[in-house]
């Protein structure tokens, strides 16, 4: 155990020293990795904010409520009263005559309506609620559907659903982009480590000759890879935070002139931690592949 800890401490110090010794080049590599990682991250932040904005400013989906054709004015009034009592509701009444007028704007439909013996359109209400959650909205709709004289109800949430689909697609795109760029980062780190092993082939060779295990040889490179991935991720997070700050300022100006609250949500702390961990894991994996390849090609043709 003690030996193990000492070995790891030594490897970590080696990796840090190597990083420090070529600080400029290493920082540049981290910056490149960070730039690449910032792209999907910024995209993710944007998508998250759109989703968030949509949730806070719902497209106020409407519930359309159609009454029975033979509902009396008193009954209509009764429903109207009940609707108006709902908190935060915005109720609009569309009488059957009004509806018929609206339809008559289209000549073809006007002909159809004329051909009918009576107005086929019922009295209707539209109810706007500040509820974005489609499930809750639907539950609400079902409740209203059970009221007396209510014939049919319908939630018009196509807009919200479209947005939801869009956000879903956006997140998927961010994930794909992330995976693609992750692969690229893997390749970049792999190459960095490969060059390092090439530069240190003498050290690797002599270490093997005097009894180093492959694990001992590999370890400093693993630490280095993890370190570089971690710093890359940190650069990416910093870049995204900077973009976020700039965009927030712009939005603040916009908010003032429009009198609405527009606020950018930064990446959640958990996600940021995950990004750092993923960066380190990616670097570690790249170093591992590289070291495994080098070990296979024993004669130091790495």
């Amino acid at each position, binding site marked *: 155990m003690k030996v193990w800890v000492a070995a790891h401490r*030594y490897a970590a110090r080696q990796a840090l020293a190597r990083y420090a010794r070529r600080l400029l080049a290493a920082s540049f590599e981290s910056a490149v990795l960070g730039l690449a990682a910032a792209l999907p991250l910024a995209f993710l932040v944007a998508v998250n904010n759109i989703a968030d904005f949509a949730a806070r400013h719902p497209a106020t989906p409407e519930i359309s409520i159609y009454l029975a054709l033979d509902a009396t004015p008193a009954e209509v009034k009764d429903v109207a009263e009940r609707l108006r009592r709902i908190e935060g509701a915005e109720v609009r009444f569309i009488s059957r005559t009004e509806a018929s007028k609206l339809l008559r704007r289209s000549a073809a439909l006007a002909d159809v309506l004329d051909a009918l013996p009576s107005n086929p359109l019922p009295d209707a209400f539209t109810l706007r609620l500040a509820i974005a959650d489609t499930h809750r909205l639907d539950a609400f709709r079902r409740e209203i559907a059970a009221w007396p004289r209510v014939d049919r109800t319908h939630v018009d949430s196509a807009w919200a659903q479209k947005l939801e689909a869009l956000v879903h697609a956006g997140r998927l795109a961010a994930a794909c982009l992330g995976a693609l760029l992750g692969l690229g980062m893997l390749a970049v780190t792999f190459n960095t480590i490969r060059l390092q092993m090439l530069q240190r082939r003498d050290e690797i060779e002599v270490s093997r000759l*005097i*009894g180093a295990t492959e694990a001992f040889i590999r370890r400093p490179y693993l630490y280095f890879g993890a370190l570089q991935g971690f710093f890359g991720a940190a650069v990416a997070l910093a870049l995204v935070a900077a973009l976020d700050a700039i965009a927030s300022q712009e939005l603040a100006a916009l908010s003032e002139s429009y009198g609405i609250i527009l606020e950018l949500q930064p990446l959640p702390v958990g996600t940021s931690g995950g990004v750092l961990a993923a960066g380190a894991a990616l670097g570690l994996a790249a170093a591992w592949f590289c070291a495994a390849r080098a070990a296979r090609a024993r004669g130091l043709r790495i």
Partner: protein
Amino acid sequence: MIRFDRVGKRYPGGIEVLARVSLEIARGELVVVTGPSGAGKSTLLNLMAGIELPTVGHVAVNGENLSRMRPRALPYLRRQFGLVFQDHKLLYDRSVFDNVALPLRIVGFDAATIPGRVSAALDKVGLLDRSRSPPIALSGGEQQRLCIARAIVHRPAILLADEPTANLDPDYAAAIADLLLSLNRAGVTVVIATHDRAVSDRLPTRRIELRAARLHEAAA
């Protein structure tokens, strides 16, 4: 301790370097292998440490057949040896201290004990005051002694020294021969490969001459 059983060695596409030689080196022995350049002295030492494997026959260290050894076990075998390489194999981007500390780190010595052990090894070869220097700042003789310090720092049971006095003037060569002799007196099994008559003559010990791919024992 080291046993060669009808060992033949032929490098791919090369001539036969060893032709079915048998050899036994006991614990605590001091053996000098002589022979002209290209006779196969380095090959013989490399076979002992499992750096090369025999084409036929087998080499055993402490009863273990190196040809049958699992690759994972090889590093642990190597730690029983101290190796002084003909071409030094020093790390020129590390200090003298770090060069000597390398075997200790590889074996996994407690970090707190490393400076003391390194200093002791450097003291034995007279390089204690150079521990912060880079190896490149050392003379040829000092680099040779640094190699010996690195080879003995982890107190190996066997020291294999390949041309430890190559390119040294006679005074230095004699000093190194004395150092190896004193290590042997302290209990280390020492095998020296050299084509330097001055060294082999100075060491009153078992001598093996390599000629025409065969071993010839010569009395001390």
